[in-house]
């Protein structure tokens, strides 16, 4: 007797597969497929509320990860993670696994052939016009063997859908920059936290062994004569999703993430701009499309690394995927893959593509033109974007048909798939959404290894409606293959170049800015907090005569110097208005500092711990909260938000002291902090300590409190607040970590710890000069300040010219 319990479960009984499509969850008799049952057993013990809660947890975690890796804080509608995985049985996956291995080998052979011997063209398998007219064909890449070097298609990916007959079909090959594995790792880590027991109880195939083979594939690429290689991940310029991945993978695998401006070709080699000069790069893991990589030879590009192709040719660097890999991306080869597989591998193709036709063939052209609505049309020249021609307005369809008769050789038509569906949570209810799987493969010296899992992308089966949803792919019910089940036999992974003593200049500058912005944010926060607190307890504050210098000081540390804020109304309004401005987003104010703080942190992410990222994420949230509180003009919310912001900023500072390895990176972070604190203190004290105050006591106590030195002052002097003692405490005291001189000593100390190769002498001499200003002469304070300020600005200039300009002031290049 058939058990009816599966179909009567809440949620599942309303799940209706779409007619004419393969559904992953429910078979044609309406029963849940056996390999899904264990998952839903877990699922139903949670209850609907818990499911919704976990869905939102998953979303927050994905967003948090994204925000740690991309600079744009508001990405446009990123894919959300569906809490239900795409469950595949190991038995079914074996078909994909074997097919994908063959496909990776085949595409590799095709790239080598099309840039080399061109048997496929000579023997009439691949039409010459389709190859030579292809926008992805790089004529500069000559002899396949030479260009592909040891690199080949290290990583390939394919989008696969299930057709109505239950067969898997490839819709697209991804070979230029094979993306998706980073999201797979990210989604799995989130799912493992959202369903902590399920992945274990269901014995979901682990992704880890695959990532270790990915890691070892880079060891395999390393030029033989290099003892301590450096592998660098070259991130993309603009693409958000790819940037998230590049960053995630670089961090996970322990490689340095660079962008094109960090790298330079000299003497036919690739170098990373680092603090001690240029450091050689041996392996470049490219996450930037090849056409953008070298403006000298791969096409006009505002970015890229001129001479990179020459460096590859000279054999000093391995680029992976090799240049030329992009040629076999997409769909244009699909009509010829079976023939190519036969000729190049002597095998029949296992994992087939969706039916595709080259319009250069008259029969195929006629077949496609007579049934246009079933096809998507791809133009290999890149002039026309991929499109479903039948969906265009009538005149455009006619124009296209004329073009297809005139230049048929440009076009490949792919049959539009009726994608199989998977259960997906939409508005709290399970719905069958069309699924497309992204499969990953990596070549190592012991063969091709396919990621046992990945991501799938879900879209509504009917047009319009919700955006896409991502899924983690779970393989259950056994081992796919020995290869993916255990780590590879240990390939000797050479130690990467010692990063303790090496710091790329762009990272150094980012850390320096991180320090400066953190310090500025902290000063503004403390100052505003003290003022607001006094305002709360002292109803006459707004009328006090000492308030004017204090507000001038507040302006000076929050980017408002020079402009007097004019506000209608009384002094009380002016106070709250000034505070709001200091906390807002004008350049130099709190929200602005926090923005740049987060921005520089992302650029230096490789140097920051996971805990640091938690703090930074909280800071990002607090920034939004504060903005809202200011908008509502709610003093209570503002104070509360400032308290939390200060706690986070202090935590950040503590983490810097407590959990960062002492080295050049730490030094630059601290120099940035000390420099900013010195500069802002001078700005502040110049407004407040050099004038004759109407009321000394409240002014000095506010300053001391804002510098966290009030308690120390009282303990030390046990007297009234006297100007000499206050200046001593806040400016000249060598033991007060908030004093100006203390900052200068801190900078000197950090500079001394930098490697000797780093040109530290000039800046160190400048610091000593500034310190002398404070300790030697008995000048009036304002004289000292007016000498020290330009000297400090000059020191900042020294830093830029000594270490930073190479990378940040992007070298202008002229082409001819």
């Amino acid at each position, binding site marked *: 007797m058939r058990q009816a319990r599966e179909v009567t479960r809440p949620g599942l009984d309303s799940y209706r597969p779409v007619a004419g499509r393969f559904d992953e969850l429910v078979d044609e008799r309406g029963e849940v497929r056996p390999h899904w049952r264990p998952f839903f057993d877990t699922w139903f013990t949670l209850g609907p509320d818990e499911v919704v809660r976990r869905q939102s947890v998953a979303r927050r975690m994905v967003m948090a990860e994204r925000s740690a890796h991309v600079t744009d804080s508001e990405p446009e509608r990123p894919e959300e993670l569906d809490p239900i995985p795409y469950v595949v049985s190991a038995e079914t996956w074996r078909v994909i696994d074997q097919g994908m291995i063959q496909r990776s080998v085949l595409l590799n052979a095709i790239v080598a052939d099309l840039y080399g011997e061109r048997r496929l063209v000579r023997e009439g398998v691949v039409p*010459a016009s389709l190859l030579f007219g292809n926008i992805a064909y790089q*004529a500069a890449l000559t002899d396949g063997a030479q260009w592909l070097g040891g690199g080949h298609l290290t990583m390939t990916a394919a989008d696969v859908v299930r057709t109505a007959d239950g067969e898997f079909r490839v819709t697209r090959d991804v070979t230029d920059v094979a993306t998706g594995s980073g999201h797979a790792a990210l989604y799995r880590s989130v799912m493992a936290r959202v369903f902590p027991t399920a992945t274990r109880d269901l014995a979901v195939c682990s992704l880890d062994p695959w990532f270790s083979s990915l890691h070892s594939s880079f060891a395999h690429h390393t030029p033989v004569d290099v003892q301590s290689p450096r592998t660098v991940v070259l991130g993309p310029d603009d693409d958000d999703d790819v940037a998230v991945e590049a960053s995630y993978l670089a961090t996970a695998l322990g490689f340095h993430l660079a962008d094109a401006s960090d790298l330079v070709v000299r*003497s036919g080699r690739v170098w990373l701009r680092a603090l001690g000069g240029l450091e050689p790069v041996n392996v470049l893991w490219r996450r930037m499309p090849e056409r953008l990589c070298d403006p000298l030879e791969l096409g006009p590009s505002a970015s890229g690394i001129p001479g990179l192709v*020459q460096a590859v040719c*000279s054999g000093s660097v391995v680029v992976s995927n090799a240049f030329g890999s992009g040629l076999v991306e997409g769909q244009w080869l699909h009509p010829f893959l079976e023939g190519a597989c036969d000729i190049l591998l002597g095998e029949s193709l296992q994992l087939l593509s969706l039916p595709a036709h080259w319009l250069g063939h008259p029969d195929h052209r006629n077949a496609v033109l007579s049934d246009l609505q079933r096809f998507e049309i791809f133009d290999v020249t890149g002039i026309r974007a991929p499109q479903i021609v039948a969906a265009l307005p009538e005149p455009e369809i006619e124009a296209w048909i004329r073009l297809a008769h005139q230049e048929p050789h440009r076009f490949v038509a792919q049959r539009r798939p009726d994608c199989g569906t998977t259960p997906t949570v939409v508005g709290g209810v399970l719905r069958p959404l069309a699924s497309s799987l992204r499969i990953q493969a990596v070549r190592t010296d012991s063969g091709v290894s396919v990621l046992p899992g990945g991501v799938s992308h879900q879209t509504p089966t009917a047009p319009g409606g919700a955006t896409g949803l991502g899924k983690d792919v779970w393989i259950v019910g056994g081992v796919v293959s020995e290869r993916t089940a255990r780590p590879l036999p240990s390939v000797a992974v050479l130690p990467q170049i010692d990063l303790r003593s090496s710091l790329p200049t762009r990272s150094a500058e980012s850390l320096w800015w991180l320090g400066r912005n953190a310090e500025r944010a902290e000063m503004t926060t403390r100052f505003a907090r003290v003022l607001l607190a006094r305002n709360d307890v002292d109803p006459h504050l707004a009328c006090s005569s000492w308030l004017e210098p204090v507000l001038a000081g507040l302006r000076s540390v929050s980017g408002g110097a020079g402009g007097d804020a004019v506000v209608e109304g009384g002094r009380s309004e002016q106070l709250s208005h000034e505070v709001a401005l200091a906390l807002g987003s004008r350049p130099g104010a709190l929200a602005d500092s926090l923005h740049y703080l987060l921005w520089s942190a992302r650029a230096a992410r490789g140097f920051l711990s996971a805990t640091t990222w938690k703090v930074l994420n909280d800071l990002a949230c607090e920034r939004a909260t504060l903005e809202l509180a200011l908008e509502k003009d709610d003093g209570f919310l503002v104070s509360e938000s400032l308290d939390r912001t200060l706690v986070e900023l202090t935590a950040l500072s503590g983490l810097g002291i407590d959990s960062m390895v002492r080295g050049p990176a730490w030094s630059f972070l601290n120099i940035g902090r000390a420099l900013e604190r010195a500069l802002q203190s001078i700005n502040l004290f110049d407004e407040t300590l050099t004038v004759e105050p109407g009321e000394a006591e409240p002014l000095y106590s506010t300053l001391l409190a804002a510098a966290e030195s009030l308690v120390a002052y009282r303990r030390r002097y046990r007297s009234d607040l006297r100007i000499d003692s206050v200046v001593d405490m806040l400016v000249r005291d060598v033991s007060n970590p908030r004093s100006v001189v203390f900052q200068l000593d801190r900078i000197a100390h950090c500079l001394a710890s930098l490697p000797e190769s780093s040109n530290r002498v000039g800046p160190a001499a400048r610091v000593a000069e500034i310190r002398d200003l404070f300790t030697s002469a008995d000048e009036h304070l304002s004289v000292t300040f007016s000498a020290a300020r330009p000297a400090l600005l000059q020191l900042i200039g020294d830093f830029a010219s000594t270490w930073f300009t190479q990378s940040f002031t992007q*070298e202008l290049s*002229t*082409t001819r």
Partner: protein
Amino acid sequence: MTTRYRVIHRTEYAYGASINSEQTIAHLLPRDTYVQTAIHSEVTCVPAPTFRRDYLDAFGNRTTYWSIEEPHDGLVVTAMCLVDTDVSVIPPESPAWDDVAWLMADEHSTDALMAMLCAQRSGLAPASEVLASYARPSFPPRRPVYDAVVEFCHRLHEDITFVPGSTDVTTPAEEVLRRREGVCQDFAHLAIGSLRSLGLPARYVSGYVETEAPEGMTKMVGSDASHAWFATFIPGWGWLDLDPTNDQAPPERHVTLAWGRDYTDVAPLRGVLFGPTVEQRLSVSVDVARV
């Protein structure tokens, strides 16, 4: 009959300011062809390169890459070569132009593969209906391709006026056709684009022509600088060079440097400069003499 030429090609750039470094790709050394043998050739530059690499590019052209990695405010490149050239031959017979496309697809030689590459549009020599209409009168159905292209080359020579400085390297072929004036590379790009618009293969050839005319001959146009012309593929026979600027098919008194899909593939000097943006002032001198 073999003629020996000595070519001295000097290019001088003045940047007007100091730049930090530069990388250059040069196509300044002559390749061997069916009618040409390079006896000696060299390319040198001042300041001396920090790094240099000589190799054959995708089209088999002799290519030099170098980088200069110290501050400098100008560059002088001197290319010198001695080449022996024989008189070109013309095909005894040629297939109908409308059969060329399928004949070359059927011929599996390396030359035919190159022809199929050169039948595709490229950046400076695209295909279009305008260019096809311009070429069509020379290509009635079944006309032998040799006769057709020679006549077309002649017509182009008559239609377009050689005006130095009237265009730059980025002027598109259709624009040249509209203005009816240009320099040698415009003649070449217009011819190449027109042939491609009819589905015929055409490639860009860069080189030189003899500077001083021997007695009894006329001085060639384009002799004061590097020169350019085009070639088309005749199935079963090979590549035929045509110089529309001088109305010669095949060209005489020419030295071939390199060939490609258009100017971009074989520019004599192409590079990237690092440093402040500079205004480059260029002066070129070419001397091609019989020795």
